[in-house]
């Protein structure tokens, strides 16, 4: 334990707090976009993930994700109940901070990932099957992918796939899952006919602020030390977020004639999500480029979803899914060992094989997350109908699921 650095420990603890804050921040971000009769239910779907996934994490998930490797596929059960996870560092992951600090930091990632997905089936899923689905998803989708990409011995990691802070593990896994979920659960009643205008955009903007703030912990903290890599990851996070915001607003201004505030928020989240896998592996000018690409790419995805008639209500596929794909591939282009010697060189540094590796990583995670989520939802639906009945959907989540009203 002599090697514990209080500065690194301080940084990761604060980062863990920041990432925790993102989950209710996401709840507010989503909550502002739904109709007022659904705002509590929407926030609840994020909030309750803190309980559901944290419990799962302590008694199963952490060990499956970061426990001693079983043939590259999953961790064994050594760490169940946090056995042996104490003050001594785990040198496999973070040699200068207590193992427990690493564990709780990672817990926050596991919590927010299924919460991201809730945006896609907003305003129409029953609460009980939602809980069941979320536990299963954490176990069968999140934990394996997390192990493959980040676990010591994970097979994608071994193949050289890089993901600094969760482009694959968090954004693509939830984005691909969201695509499956939107298909399974179907459109909201009134879709295409009514407007479903956001009931409280300032709430969404507040959520955006909390997400951005928390993202510094998400990406910066993923350096697992308060060093130069953390500095570059932090800087890149900010720069991609601001570039995504700028780009979305500009494209929208050009395309629709107005720069909207929800566009600014959406672009920021797109930029932040997209830079996530690359944050500690690329330079700041690349991060700005990544943000710009995210802004235009996610704008295009989101504004064309109506054409294909997919009710991905709050655009999880178009922002997190696509962001995860774009970011992971951009890392394949822009990665630079000059920035992070522990990383890789990308296509633009002459290393095309790394780009192919990243492409492979994207394909694996996309297909796996999509397929397993689809099956899981069909199973849960067969046992206990996922969808609200029509009266409840008309009445709203808040009253029908929680017997509450948001505003009096």
């Amino acid at each position, binding site marked *: 334990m002599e090697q514990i650095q209080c500065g690194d420990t301080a940084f990761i603890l604060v980062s863990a707090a920041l990432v925790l804050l993102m989950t209710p921040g996401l709840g507010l971000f989503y909550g502002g976009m739904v109709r007022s009769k659904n705002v509590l239910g929407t926030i609840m779907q994020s909030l309750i993930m803190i309980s559901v996934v944290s419990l799962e994490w302590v008694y199963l998930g952490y060990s499956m994700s970061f426990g001693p490797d079983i043939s590259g596929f999953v961790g064994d059960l050594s760490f169940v109940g946090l056995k042996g996870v104490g003050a001594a560092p785990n040198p496999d992951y973070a040699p200068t901070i207590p193992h427990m600090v690493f564990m709780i930091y990672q817990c926050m990632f596991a919590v927010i990932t299924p919460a991201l997905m809730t945006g896609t089936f907003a305003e129409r899923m029953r609460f009980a099957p939602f809980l069941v689905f979320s536990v299963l998803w954490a176990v069968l989708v999140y934990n394996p992918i997390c192990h493959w990409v980040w676990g010591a011995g994970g097979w994608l990691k071994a193949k050289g796939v890089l993901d600094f802070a969760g482009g694959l593990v968090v954004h693509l896994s939830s984005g691909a899952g969201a695509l499956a979920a939107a298909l399974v659960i179907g459109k909201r009643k009134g879709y295409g006919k009514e407007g479903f*205008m956001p009931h409280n955009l300032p709430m969404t903007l507040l959520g955006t602020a909390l997400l951005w703030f928390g993202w510094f912990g998400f990406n910066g903290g993923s350096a697992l030390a308060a060093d130069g890599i953390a500095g570059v990851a932090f800087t890149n996070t900010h720069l991609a977020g601001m570039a995504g915001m700028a780009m979305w607003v500009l494209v929208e201004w050009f395309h629709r004639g107005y720069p909207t505030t*929800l566009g600014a928020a959406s672009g920021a989240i797109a930029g932040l999500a997209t830079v996530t896998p690359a944050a500690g592996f690329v330079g700041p000018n690349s991060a700005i480029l990544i943000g710009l690409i995210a802004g235009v790419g996610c704008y295009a995805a989101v504004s064309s979803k*109506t054409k294909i008639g997919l009710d991905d209500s709050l*655009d999880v596929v178009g922002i997190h899914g696509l962001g995860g794909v774009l970011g992971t591939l951009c890392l394949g282009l822009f990665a630079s060992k000059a920035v992070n010697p522990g990383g890789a060189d990308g296509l633009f540094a002459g290393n095309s094989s790394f780009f192919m590796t990243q492409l492979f990583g994207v394909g694996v995670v996309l297909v796996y997350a999509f397929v397993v989520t689809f099956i899981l939802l069909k199973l849960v639906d067969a046992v206990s109908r996922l969808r609200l009945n029509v009266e409840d959907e008309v009445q709203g989540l808040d009253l029908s699921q929680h017997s509450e009203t948001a505003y009096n």
Partner: protein
Amino acid sequence: MKKIEAIIKPFKLDDVKEALNEIGIAGMTISEVKGYGRQKGHKEIYRGAEYVVDFLPKVKLEIVTEESKAEEVVNTIREAAYTGKIGDGKIFVLPVEEVVRVRTGEKGREAI
């Protein structure tokens, strides 16, 4: 007794209130309503898509007054609420059979 209901543009409320004060109308009740009519709704943008919002914010005034004053009230509102653009609103006059002041129990013109 007559009840005058006027649907006007919200930003005209202060002007109308003042104009009514000047002709001695010291009581009224207002509420926020949404109106639909010739005035075209505006477009709103939501995540890259355009939606038309049909219902526009309006203010509804309700004033109960003596028969003899009704016309003056109508004219006063008309003038004060006027901008000349579509959507300026409407004024309706309805008959009222009885008026009671809760505090005193007074009825009719005393109650206004």
